[in-house]
Each structure stands twice: as C-alpha cells, then as structure tokens.
C-alpha cells in the first residue's frame, strides 16, 4: 500500500524567508509524486510533480521540490515566501501503474507579514 507522511501540522514563516514543507512517502517501485495547494473554500490546485528525470522539479508560483530516493522524501520549497502563499499544502503519491493517489494529511502554511 502507498502512503504519505507530512509530519508538521503547521508551518509558520516570515514573509521573504525560505519556505519548506516536508513530505515522505512509501510505495512499491518508483513513485509518481505530486504537490497540491488548497486555498480556503476551494478545491485542490496542482503545483508540481515528479515522474522521472531531474530530482529538482520546478512548478507554479515559484515553488520547487526535491526528490530524494534514498530518504523517500519530496520536500516542497520556495526561496522567498509571500503572504499569499498562506494555504493548505498536500503531498500525494501514486505507484507505477497504480490507479489510486494517496494523500498526506496536509500542512497549513502561515506566512507572517
């Protein structure tokens, strides 16, 4: 079975500082990894994905994520956080050939002006 762990409930960061949201996963075989963002009372919006290739993946709104196979991690990063980045962030994994996408519990990011 596949699973995702997002160990922190909330991440607080000052505006302009680097932002990191942690994610570790468990899956059989090579993973397909995704990050989504959810703003209040909205659906999930896709940010970026890792399928294969370069371990550093760049996505929307200046976000990037680094795939680390040995640590089974896929941490989301942004060099300089904005107040508008305050939202709920979800990491998700799917196994090769799998139909299901497993989500972590989500991390609330609060960017302090």
């Amino acid at each position, binding site marked *: 079975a596949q699973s*995702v762990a*997002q160990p922190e*409930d909330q991440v607080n960061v000052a505006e302009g500082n680097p932002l990191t949201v942690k994610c570790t996963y468990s899956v059989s075989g090579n993973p*397909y990894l*995704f990050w*989504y963002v959810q703003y209040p*009372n*909205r*659906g*999930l*919006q*896709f940010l970026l*994905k890792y*399928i294969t290739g370069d371990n550093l993946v760049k996505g929307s709104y200046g976000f990037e994520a680094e795939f680390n196979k040995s640590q089974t991690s896929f941490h989301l990063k942004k060099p300089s956080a904005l107040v508008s980045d305050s939202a709920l962030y*979800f990491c998700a994994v*799917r196994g*090769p*050939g*799998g*139909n*299901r*996408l*497993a*989500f*972590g*519990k*989500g991390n609330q990011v609060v960017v302090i002006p």
Partner: protein
Amino acid sequence: NAGVTQTPKFRILKIGQSMTLQCTQDMNHNYMYWYRQDPGMGLKLIYYSVGAGITDKGEVPNGYNVSRSTTEDFPLRLELAAPSQTSVYFCASRDRDSNTEAFFGQGTRLTVV
C-alpha cells in the same frame, strides 16, 4: 474549459435522508475519483472509476455508491445519511496517461444533522 464541476456547493441533510452529489468533467478523462476531506485527516478515497461502466472501492466506501454510465459523469450517492458523513467531498479526474496529475472540482460541503 470548465474542468471538473461539482454540484451542489453546500447541502444540509437530515439523518436518514438520501442525496446524490453530481460531478461532471469536460476533459474526456478516463479516470475519475471521489474523495472526502475531514479536518486534519487529509483526503480519503471513497470510490474511483477507470472508465465508463467500471467502478471500484477506495479506502472508505461504506455508506456510498457510485455509477459511471458516461465518460463525463461520476455521481456519488448517499443512501441513508449519517452524521459521520459530514465532510467536504471532492471529485477529481485525470487522463489515462500515468504521468498526468489529477484535476479537482471546487468541492461540496455536506452537513448531516
């Protein structure tokens, strides 16, 4: 493109009542999913479908039913509503290509009283 459309956006049900949550997508996606989101719990998969006429259970299918008579539509049926079904429900779809990300609807907030 409208993407994934869910109706209604909000609904209050009494215990024992029934309702259908509607989901339609206009992207000709083969795969469709229903998730429920509870605070601090992430997204849990209820049912999914890999194409018209094919459905399968996810992690939390009890109390729900689905059908997939067309590629576009994937309604979720609650037969005897219970307070434990109070949640936010999200429908999602994706292309059959395993590299692709899922697209989400805006959600239906359901309260059972």
